[in-house]
């Protein structure tokens, strides 16, 4: 209801009990201009620091294309994320418009109709309602809802029911308590925590379709720059897709509370050029390296409980509770992104997993320092 009324059209008439209305009207006229000035100043007084504050908050949001260290939803690098961003600008514009209109009216009413010292002791006119105005401000929101809904529904269908092209890469994502397992069923690759996908372009589309499963509790796959999140729920497979336009590292993390170390269930998605991706696939398909110089470490690995949980292709280790370590050294981080993959960190991790991730399900193996060193020496050969 923009521009409802000017004060002059709202002419007060004092009831029979008093006849001071004329003088009061004059005084009121004089007050009005001063009042409006005061109101504007008050609004400026409040709004300027508020807007500065909002700008300060908004400043660190990354807007640019390409991978960012801060995973802003306003820096999309993939079709689902881009459609969502377009939609979000549209919704922001509408809601922003509503906010300015209603908030403006409210602020104006508060300033304009505040009690003043010069006021007499009368009650203002009692207004009980108006069918027409109320009807108007019921119908207009309904029309806005219709528009918003149609737009939203189109984007839902466009993202959720997008057909899967032949060239699409399939990846099965399995959520585990505090780490990610990635399986490439057509390529025969199993890896953990760091997802490699090829870049996709308008000329050469190569989307990746993710099939989402969970091994234990609920998790959620969220890399904001690539797509909205989708939950990984046991007994309830889900699907989502991405088609990243720029190469690089995209970060995200589990977005559904899944237990103690939910905070350190980090996600890293590497978007490679087609050549890089093919090279990576080739390397991942090799069997584990067999370096005799680290046989002692391998022996420790195979004779301790490590094999219960971890797999290293080509050895006796076939466990599935923990990440596949066959190509451990091809990954930049350990413990689902909690620490960089360095021999020192590996050593510390094996010695006391709680040091990086208190509550992680990997037990402290109570090995001696030498044993751990030999083990780390072995693990660092797993390229």
């Amino acid at each position, binding site marked *: *209801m923009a521009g*409802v009324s000017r004060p002059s059209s709202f002419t007060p008439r004092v*009831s029979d009990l008093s006849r001071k209305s004329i003088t009061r009207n004059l005084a009121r006229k004089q007050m009005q201009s001063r009042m409006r000035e005061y109101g504007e100043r008050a609004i400026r007084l409040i709004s300027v620091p508020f807007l500065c*504050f909002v700008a300060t908050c908004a400043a*660190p*949001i990354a807007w640019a294309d390409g991978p960012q*260290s*801060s*995973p*802003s*939803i*306003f820096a999309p690098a993939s079709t*689902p994320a881009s459609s*969502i961003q377009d*939609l979000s600008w549209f919704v922001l514009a509408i*809601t922003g418009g509503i906010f300015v209109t*209603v*908030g403006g009216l*409210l602020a104006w*009413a508060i300033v304009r*109709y*505040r*009690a003043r010292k010069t006021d007499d002791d009368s*009650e*203002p*006119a009692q*207004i*009980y*309602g*108006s069918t027409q105005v109320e009807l108007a*401000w*019921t119908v207009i*929101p*309904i029309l806005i*809802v219709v528009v*918003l*809904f149609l737009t*939203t*529904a189109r984007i*839902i269908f466009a*993202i959720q029911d997008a057909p899967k092209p032949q060239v699409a890469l399939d990846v099965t994502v399995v959520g585990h308590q505090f780490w990610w397992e990635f399986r490439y069923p057509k390529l025969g690759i199993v890896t953990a925590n760091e997802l490699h996908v090829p870049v996709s372009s308008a000329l050469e589309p190569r989307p990746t379709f993710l099939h989402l499963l969970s091994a*234990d509790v*609920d998790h959620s796959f*969220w890399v904001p720059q690539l797509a*909205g*999140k989708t*939950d990984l*729920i046991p*007994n*309830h497979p889900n*699907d989502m897709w991405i088609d990243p336009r720029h190469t690089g590292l995209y*970060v995200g993390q589990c*977005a559904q*509370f*899944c*237990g*103690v170390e*939910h*905070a350190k269930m980090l996600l890293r998605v590497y978007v490679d050029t087609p050549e890089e991706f093919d090279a990576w696939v080739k390397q991942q398909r090799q069997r584990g390296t067999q370096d005799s110089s680290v046989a002692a470490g391998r022996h420790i690995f195979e004779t301790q409980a490590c094999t219960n949980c971890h797999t290293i292709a080509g050895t006796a280790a076939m466990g599935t509770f923990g990440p596949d370590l066959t190509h451990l050294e091809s990954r930049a981080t350990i413990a689902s992104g909690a620490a960089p993959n360095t021999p020192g960190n590996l050593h510390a991790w094996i010695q006391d997993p709680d040091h990086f991730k*208190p509550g992680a399900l990997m037990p402290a193996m109570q090995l001696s320092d030498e044993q751990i060193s030999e083990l780390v020496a072995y693990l660092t050969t797993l390229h």
Partner: protein
Amino acid sequence: MADQTLPIAGSLEVTPQRHSPALLPEWLHGWVVTVDHKRLGILYVVYSIFFLLVAGAEALAIRIQLAWPNNHFLSPELYNEMFTMHGTTMVFLVGMPILFGFANYLVPLMIGARDMAFPRLNAFSFWMTAFGGLLLYYSFIGGFGLYGMGAAPDVGWWAYAPLTAKAFSPGHATDYWALALIVSGFGTLGTAINVIATTLSMRCRGMSLLRMPLFVWLMLVVSGLTLVTITPLTAAQIMLTIDRYLGGHFFDTQAGGSAVVWMHFFWIFGHPEVYVLVMPVFGIASEIIPVFSRKAIFGYPAMVAASVAIAFVSLGVWAHHMFTVGMTSVGNAFFVLSTMLVGIPTGIKIFNWVATIWGGKIRFATPMLFCLAFLFQFLIAGLTGIMLSVAPWNWQLHNSYFVIAHFHYVLVGAIVFNIFAAIYYWYPKVTGRMLSETLGKWHFWLFLIGFHVTFDTMHFVGFMGMPRSIYTYEPDRGWNHLNFIISIGGMIQGIAVLLFAWNLVQSYFRGKKAGNDPWDAWTLEWSTPSPPPAYNFATDPVVHSRRPLWDLKHPEDPDWKYEA
């Protein structure tokens, strides 16, 4: 007709022996055995304010932990307990009891009754709620979880299966959560039944349904909603307990059970629960805004209709909490539409409040300040709600700090602000003394600033991809400064709440005498002395309009002439 006048109780004195300061045990005994709706109302509010301080302290612990990355103030386990208990406490031990406390105190007074319909059930309900809360907190001492003794529930207040299964949540921490909520749930159920019976069966002469104050209307709607929302939660908790104690398989994904079913059951409760919390404060705002604008509420029938509409629509929107769990696209679209529809009656309410202010003479007393801030904040909360209802955008925003910001805008920006408004407004009626306006203004401005510093900023870290429920975060994500700002804001709010608590205590002893009607208000409770006698009204009042006291104050221009 003998009753040609509106009889209003005199400033009645209760017999001296009831008031005279007795010995402490006697005094305590009086409170324990009481069935007086006013005393029980006070008990509810005091109990809730105590837990408000507790849950506030938990929130501050959370914010200290998150002030900078890789902080070690709390262990991950303790952090998870903190946010679980913060959420559970604020919803079940602060929000609902305090609002039902207001209902207890005010509904009989406002409809001209002498007590609730079932005074003993009322006492029972309060004690169930109270003992439920104590049972929940006993888990800090007696709970036996994965980490030994003293483990409070740590599965989130939404407690998604199968994290709550024995396999992932061993020990008894989760059982404490389920059992405490079942116990307090029965208390809430009793209160809801009581409020419905009171409003329908105890109204004084002339108090037709369409003359009831809006607060009473909203409590009636809320109680009806509570009946059909708390019970699904209780049912789901019973199923969870069966799973955990008897080896059932309701939510056992290994035996074909479904984790998604729990989500449905929880949110069938959980979403209307938000309305259970927010609608009473609509009622509070609808009482306070007219009085301080000096105008009748604009569009009373529309306000009632909108409340009922919100209650009905709210029962069909729950799955908007589940856009990311993989529903069909048609299912998603349906819940987008139903959720957006809530915006329409809510919009009507906001417009009607603005129209009530429009043309009034606004007095900026502390209660009104809180209500005005509520109007702005609730507007923003509603608009961010619309943003979240847009399913594709929700896929980004869900479980991020944006959601935290949104629902704190509702729970704090709307509900807590209005609860403060209500306490400033009705404290004089309850205690006979005014709360200090100076401290009140300090409280208001500090809390307002703290609120905005905290929760405005949270929207932005949400945009930047920070998920909720994480005990720490990576230092390179660009979230550091904003998190620090949020924590500062939390501290400011904490100081403001302490000022408020101090105000409550010191005004009780030193506050200005209130008189029976300090705000020049219009509803029946202001026609009794402050504090009201045990029987409320010496003679049963008779009313002729929505504003009985207006009719008395302006006999030349009474309301009843213009109401249909």
